[in-house]
C-alpha cells in the first residue's frame, strides 16, 4: 500500500523538483514529467484494484494514520492522473525554440507537476486540515501558471482567482476549525482527531447546531473552489486565460477535488445531523449553479469561457446528485468522472483551436471542420458529450441523475434540471454550429495533419464511448463502492 502510494505521489513531486533544478529548460524534463504521471496513473489503477479487492487501505495504526485510500480516493486519483497524463502528453508540443519560451515552459512544468501533486495529496490524505492545506496549495500552484504569458487579461484573471479562492478556502478552514472545536469540546483531544474517519465515527455524539454552521462554512469554502454559483465568478476568467492544458486540469479535476472535499464533509455532517440539511444546501447551490451556468451559455462570445460556464453547470449537477441519495451519488460520481474526461478533451481541443485561429471569440472561428478536420471533430465530440448525448458517458450519468431525482420524489428538480439541460444543449449546439461550419477566415491556414495529439484525444473519446455504451463492470463497482465514502 505504501509503495503504491509512493509511486502515486512521488513522480509529480520528483518531476517538479527536476524542473526546478534543471535550468535552462531541457526537453527531457517534459518527458520525465509525462512518464512520471504515467507511473502515477499506473499506481492509481493499482490502488483501484487493491481497494476493490481488499477494501479501504490505510497505515497500520488506524486512528493516527495520515494516509487512507478508499474507493472514492482511488477514483479521484484515477481521474487526476488520467487527465494529467492526457494534458501532459499534449503539453510536449508547447515548447518553442526561443529563450523566453523555454523559461516559460520550465515554469510551466514546475507548477503543473506541483499542481498535480497537491491534488493527489488532497484526495489521499485523511486529515481534513491537511486536506485543506493541500487544496489551498492547489490554488497557489495553479494561479502561478495562469499568467504564463503576462497579458493584462491573464494577470487580472489570476488575481481574481487567487483572491476569491483564497478567501473562500479560508472560510473552509474556519469551518474545519469549528468542527474540530466541536469534537474537542465533546471528546477532548484525541490523536488523529482531525482524520475524517475518526470524525465520522464520533459524529453521532457531536452537536448538530455547530456542525451545521461548520458545514455552511465548508460548503461556501470548498464550493468556491468547486465553482458553485454564486462563488463561481473566478472560474470563467481563470479557465479562459489559463493555458489550455491547465484549464483542462482545473476544469476537469480541480473542481472535482473540491467537490470531493465537500463530499467527505457531507458524510461527517450527515452522521450527526439529519441528511436533509446537507442535501438542501447542496441542492440549493447545485440548482443555482446549473441555472447560472446554463444561462451564461446562452449569449456567450468566447469558446473557452463557454466551456468554463459549462463546468459551473456540471458541478451544479454533481452537487445536486450528491443530494439525491445513493443513486444520485452514484450518478454524481460517474458524472464527475465523465466530466473530467470530456471537459479536458474539450479544453485541449480548444487550445489547439486557439493556437491556430489566435482568437477566443466564437464569432471569429468559422469553418473549423475545414481548417482543422481532426481537432474540429474532436472539439465537436467533446461538446456533444458535454451536452449529454449518447453514446457518451455523460448521457448515462445524466440519465441516472434524473432517475434519482424522480425516485426520491423531487419532481421539480428533475423538471428544472431537464429544462436547463435543454437550454444548455441548444446554446452549445448553436455556438458549435457557428464554429464548425462556414467559410474559414482568410488569414488562417487550412488543413491539419493527424499528429499524435489527435490520437491521444481520440483515446479520450474512446473512453467516453466505453463509459457511455458499456460502463465497464469494474468502473461501476468502483463507483458503487465510492458512494459509501459519501453516503455511509
Amino acid at each position, binding site marked *: 500500500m505504501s509503495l503504491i502510494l509512493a509511486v502515486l505521489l512521488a513522480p509529480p513531486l520528483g518531476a517538479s523538483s527536476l524542473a526546478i533544478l534543471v535550468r535552462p529548460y531541457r526537453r527531457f524534463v517534459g518527458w520525465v514529467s509525462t512518464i512520471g504521471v504515467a507511473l502515477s496513473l499506473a499506481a492509481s489503477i493499482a490502488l483501484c484494484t487493491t481497494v476493490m479487492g481488499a477494501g479501504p487501505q490505510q497505515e497500520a495504526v488506524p486512528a493516527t494514520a495520515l494516509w487512507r485510500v478508499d474507493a472514492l480516493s482511488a477514483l479521484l486519483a484515477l481521474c487526476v492522473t488520467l487527465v494529467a497524463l492526457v494534458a501532459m502528453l499534449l503539453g510536449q508540443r508547447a515548447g518553442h525554440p526561443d529563450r523566453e519560451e523555454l523559461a516559460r515552459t520550465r515554469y510551466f512544468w514546475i507548477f503543473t507537476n506541483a499542481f498535480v501533486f497537491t491534488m493527489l495529496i488532497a484526495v489521499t490524505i485523511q486529515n481534513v486540515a491537511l486536506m485543506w492545506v493541500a487544496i489551498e496549495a492547489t490554488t497557489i500552484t495553479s494561479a502561478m501558471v495562469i499568467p504564463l504569458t503576462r497579458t493584462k487579461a491573464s494577470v487580472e484573471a489570476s*488575481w481574481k482567482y487567487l*483572491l*476569491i479562492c483564497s*478567501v*473562500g478556502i479560508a*472560510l473552509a478552514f474556519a469551518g474545519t476549525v469549528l468542527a474540530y472545536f466541536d469534537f474537542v469540546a465533546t471528546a477532548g483531544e484525541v490523536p488523529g482527531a482531525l482524520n475524517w474517519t475518526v470524525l465520522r465515527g464520533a459524529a453521532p455524539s457531536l452537536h448538530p*447546531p455547530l456542525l*451545521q*454552521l461548520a*458545514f*455552511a*462554512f465548508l460548503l*461556501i469554502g470548498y*464550493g*468556491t473552489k468547486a465553482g458553485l454559483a*454564486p*462563488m463561481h*465568478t473566478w472560474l*470563467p476568467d481563470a479557465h479562459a486565460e489559463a493555458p489550455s492544458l491547465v484549464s483542462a486540469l482545473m476544469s476537469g479535476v480541480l473542481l472535482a477535488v473540491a467537490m470531493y472535499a465537500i463530499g467527505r464533509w457531507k458524510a461527517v455532517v450527515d452522521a450527526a445531523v439529519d441528511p436533509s440539511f446537507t442535501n438542501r*444546501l447542496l441542492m440549493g447551490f447545485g440548482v443555482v449553479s446549473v441555472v447560472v451556468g446554463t*444561462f*451564461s*451559455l*446562452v*449569449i456567450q462570445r468566447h469558446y473557452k469561457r463557454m466551456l468554463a460556464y459549462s463546468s459551473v453547470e456540471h458541478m451544479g449537477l454533481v452537487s445536486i446528485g450528491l443530494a439525491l441519495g445513493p443513486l444520485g451519488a*452514484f450518478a454524481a460520481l*460517474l458524472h464527475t468522472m465523465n466530466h473530467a474526461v470530456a471537459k479536458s478533451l474539450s479544453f485541449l481541443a480548444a487550445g489547439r483551436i486557439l493556437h491556430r485561429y489566435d482568437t477566443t471569440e466564437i464569432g471569429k472561428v468559422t469553418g473549423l*471542420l475545414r481548417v482543422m478536420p481532426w481537432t474540429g471533430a474532436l472539439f465537436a465530440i467533446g461538446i456533444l458529450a458535454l451536452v449529454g*448525448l*449518447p*453514446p457518451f458517458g455523460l*448521457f*448515462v450519468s445524466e*440519465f441516472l441523475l*434524473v*432517475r434519482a431525482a*424522480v*425516485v426520491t*420524489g423531487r*419532481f421539480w428538480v*428533475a423538471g428544472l434540471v*431537464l*429544462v436547463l*439541460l*435543454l*437550454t444548455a*444543449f*441548444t446554446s452549445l*449546439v*448553436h455556438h458549435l454550429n*457557428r464554429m*464548425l*461550419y*462556414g467559410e474559414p477566415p482568410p488569414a488562417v491556414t487550412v488543413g491539419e495533419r493527424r499528429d499524435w495529439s489527435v490520437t491521444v484525444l481520440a483515446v479520450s473519446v474512446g473512453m467516453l464511448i466505453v463509459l457511455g*455504451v*458499456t*460502463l465497464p*463492470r469494474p468502473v*461501476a463497482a468502483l*463507483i458503487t463502492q465510492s458512494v459509501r465514502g459519501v453516503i455511509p
Partner: protein
Amino acid sequence: MAFGTVALLVMAVGYTLGAVLSLVARSDRAARVLTAVGAVVGGAGGLAAAVSVLATRVSVDAVLPTAVSAAGGIVIRLDPLGAFFLALITAVSLPAAVYGTTYMAEYDGRCSLRVFGLMFNAFLLGMSVVPCAANIFTFVMAWELMAVSSYFLVMTESENSETRQAGLWYAAMTHLGLVLLLPMFFLIAAGHEATAFVDLRAYGATLTAGTRTAVFLLALTAFGSKAGIVPLHVWLPRAHPAAPSHVSALMSGVMIKLGIYGLIRVLFDLLGGGPAWWGGVLLAVGSISALLGVLYALVEHDLKRLLAYHSVENIGIILIGLGAGSLLHSVGLRTLAVIGWTGALFHTLNHACFKGLLFLGAGSVKQQTHTGNMEELGGLITRMPQTALYFLVGSAAIAALPPLNGFASEWLVFQSLLAGAHISRPEIAAGFPIAVGMLALTSGLAAACFVKAFGISFLAMPRSDHAAQARECHWSMRAMMLVLAGGCVVLGLAAPWVTRGMSRIIDGVPGLSAGEPIPPSSSLWLTVPSSSAQVSPLLLAVLLGAITVAVLGAIHVGGLRVRRADTWGCGRISQTARMEYTASAFAEPLRRVFAEVYQPTQDLSISMHPEARYFIQSITYTSHVVPWFEHVFYDPVIRAARGLAAQTRRLQAGSLHLYLLYVVAALVAALACAWWFQ
C-alpha cells in the same frame, strides 16, 4: 440461437460495420458503396427479424445485462407491435440506402461522405433499435442515437446557413423530446427499482389518476415533438428540406412514425389505455395537425418543404385514427375501436411508403435541376418520365385516391369516426362529426395541394434552364422509386389482407386489444364490424381498368385521329413558360379563403412614371406567410431565455469586489440556512 435473434444480430452488426467501414473508406465512392452495403445488410437482418416475429407471433428476446448495468442494461425484446414498426423502417430504409448510393454522388468532394456514412448507419441503427428496446435506458439511448445522427445528416449541406439554422431547430426540438421523455418514463417507474417494460406494464396498472394524466401529457408532447404534431412540428419544414432527399425520406417516412410508436407503446401498452378524454385530446390534436399541416403545405412552393408539411398532415390523420380508437375503446366499443387502431397503423405504413416515394422523387428532381423551388420547375414529365410517373403514384396515394393505399387507410379512419355514432354519450359523440368535417377538408385540400405539386413541377413547360436541361436519373434510383410505388399500389389493392394482419398485432397489445375474437374479414373487402360498410379497392381497380380498356378499345376501333398543335394562347403566337400558371397563383384562391389562418403579410410596391401616374414602370408584389404559432409559442420562449441570459450575464460584471460580495452573501445565506434549520 433462434432465427430472430440471429437476424437481430445481423442487423446490429450490419449497421455497425457499415458505419465503421464507410468511415475508413479510401475514396468517396467507396464510402458511398460501403454505406449502402452496411445499411442493406442491416436492413435485411431487421426485415428478416420483423417478418419472422410477425409470421410466428413469437417475440424475440436478447439481453445484454452486463452493459451499463447501473442504468438497467441493454434489453431487447421484439414483439409483434415492434416488429411491425421495424418492418416499416426497413421497408423504407432498404430502398433509401440503395438510392443514396448514386444520389450522394453529387456530394463527392463537397462534404465528408465518410462521416455521412457513419451517421447514416448510426441513424438506421438507432431507429431500428427503438422498436426493439424493452427497458427505459435502451429506448432512450436508441432514441437519442437516432436524434444525434439525424442531426448530422440534416447538417450535410452545412455550407448553407439555412441548413445550419434548420439543424439548430431540429436539435433543440428533438432534445425537447428527450427532456420530456425521461420524466415520463421515470414517472411510470417512480418508486420502483426495475425499468424494464415488462415491469413498467405492471406498474402502469397501479398508477394514480394524476400520474397517469401527467404521463399522458408528457408522452403526447415528447412523442408529439418527434412525430411533428402542431405546434411542435416547427422543425419538420426546416430540417426535411435541408437533409439529402433519401434522408428526408427516412426522417419523414419513418423517423416521425417512431413518435407514433412511442405513443402506442406507452399509452396503450405500458399504461393499458386511458380515460375518454385522452382519446378526445388525441382526436383534437390530430384534427388540428392534419388541417394546419395541409394548409401550410398549400402555400409552400419548395417541393421538399411542401412534403414536410404533408407529414404533419398525415401524422394528424394517424392521430385521428388513434384518438377515435381510444375514445371508442374507453366507452366499451372495443371491436369498433379496432377499426380506428387499424386505420392508424395502416396509415402509418402507407405514409411511410408514399412519403418515402415522394421524397425520393423530389430528390431526383432536385438532383437534376438543383432546385426544389416549384416556380423554377415544370415540364419534367417529358424529361424524366419514369420519375414523374412514380411521383404521380405517390401524389395520388397521399391524396387518398382509390384504389391506392392512402385511400384504404383513410377509409378506415373515416369509418372509425362514423362509429362514433354508436356512442351513447352525446358530449363524446359530438366530437366525431367535427373530426369528420376536418378530415374531409384535409383530404380535399391535400388533393388540391398535390395537383399543384405534381402539376406545376412536372407538367407543361419548364420555367427555368435548369428544369429544361433535366435528364432522367440513374436507373438504381428509379428502381428504388419503382419499388416504393409498387408498394403503394400493392398495399392499396391488398389492403384487406394487410389489415387482417394488423388486427392480429393489435390483439397482442393490452390497451388496444378488443378482448374478444373479431369476426374474420374477407380478403377482398375492407369491412367494419357491426356495419355493412365495405369497400374493395381491388374490385374498384378492376372495374376502373376494365372500363378504361373498353372505352380505349372502342375509341381506337372507331379510329382516333390526333393532331398536334400549339396550345391556344389567346391570340399570341408562341407559348412561353411565363404564361403558365404559377404555384403561387394556383394556391391564391385557397390562400385568400384561409387568410385568417395564414395572416399573410403583403407588400405591393408600384413605381410610377415621374411624369404621369398612368404609366407604371414596375410593380413588385411580395407576400409572405409566416406561421403565426411560431410567434405565439416560440418567440416568447426564446425571448424569455435570452432575457434571463442577459440578466445572468450581469452577474459577471468584472468587479472583484462584487465577486467577493457574492461569496460573503452566499456565506451569510448558508449560515442563515443552517441557523434556520436548527
